[in-house]
């Protein structure tokens, strides 16, 4: 990387500078959410699709505080447990926003929120056939990742740990294998708890990191958003710089010659 060639990444033909994608859930209020987004430097944010409150139309709306003019909205299918529900949700999202770039997640069970890969693959195929550009949340399985890519996923987004757990990257080997085998961007989605987790994801060669709870549930979300921005940048630089080799024992940094 040189100063003259900015380090960007592209998904489905759109180019971005920030490698941090952040969610918009669990914040105290829209003002804090908006401030955290700004501090994170994110260009893409995830949003959910839900019924309007028919009995109270005066409730504040997300889009009144966070504008699709300022961020690329990535509608998700959180809470969907079948391919049919997920596809139905994203058809509505496309109508509400007009965007083809979406985040697909099809969950297998409520306790772990682990992805159901059979339904996820089925939904990916349907979405691609309908012209969507799905970025797909998945297990950290290099074979499943390949299958998603073959089905037309525009990005592979393996979990680092269960959604909302903050446990960090549990299996660096599988994340690295997915990165090495992928022809589309790979982003760790879910499991990041603190800044070092985000840096690890980037050091493994991921194109980006997606997170929500790690920022929203920090004691100071806006400061944590800034920390995550820096961690993603640090991890990316570290990956590009190429880390030193590991040694089993010490190797002095000061010369041995000339000792008194």
């Amino acid at each position: 990387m040189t100063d003259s060639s900015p380090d960007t990444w592209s998904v489905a033909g759109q180019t971005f500078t920030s490698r941090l994608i952040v969610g918009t859930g669990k914040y105290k209020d829209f003002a804090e959410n908006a401030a955290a987004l700004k501090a994170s430097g994110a260009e893409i944010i995830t949003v959910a699709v839900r019924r309007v409150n028919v009995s109270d139309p005066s409730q504040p709306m997300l889009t009144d505080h966070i504008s699709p003019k300022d961020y690329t909205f990535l509608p998700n299918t959180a809470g969907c447990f079948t391919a049919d529900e997920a596809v139905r949700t994203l058809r509505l999202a496309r109508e509400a926003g007009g965007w083809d770039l979406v985040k697909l997640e099809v969950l297998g069970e409520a306790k772990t929120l682990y992805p159901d890969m059979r339904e996820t693959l089925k939904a990916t195929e349907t979405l691609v056939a309908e012209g969507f550009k799905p970025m797909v949340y998945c297990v950290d399985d290099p074979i499943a990742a390949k299958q998603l890519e073959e089905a037309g996923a525009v990005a592979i987004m393996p979990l680092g740990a269960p959604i909302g757990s903050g446990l960090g990257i549990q299996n660096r080997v599988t994340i690295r294998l997915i990165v090495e085998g992928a022809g589309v961007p790979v982003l760790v989605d879910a499991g990041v708890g603190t800044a070092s987790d985000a840096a690890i994801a980037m050091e493994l060669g991921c194109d980006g990191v997606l997170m929500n709870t790690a920022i929203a549930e920090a004691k100071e979300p806006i400061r944590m958003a800034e920390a995550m921005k820096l961690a993603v940048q640090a991890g990316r630089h570290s990956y590009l710089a190429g880390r030193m080799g590991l040694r089993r024992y010490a190797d002095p940094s000061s010369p041995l010659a000339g000792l008194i």
Partner: protein
Amino acid sequence: MLKVIINGEDKRVSPGSVADMVRALGFQPEKLAVERNREIVPRSMLGEVMVADGDMFEIVHFVGGG
């Protein structure tokens, strides 16, 4: 009045277009997506598709999520 179901709730609405119904509920159609009897009503058609007795609607918008 027409009997319809909106987001799982029984409602009575005046005859008119889907856009009229959404406005009467207090929402701006351009901020929402509408599904009628499990089919998307394209935004460009909201003013033309007429509400029929027994219709089932889902009206959604974007909320915070990860």
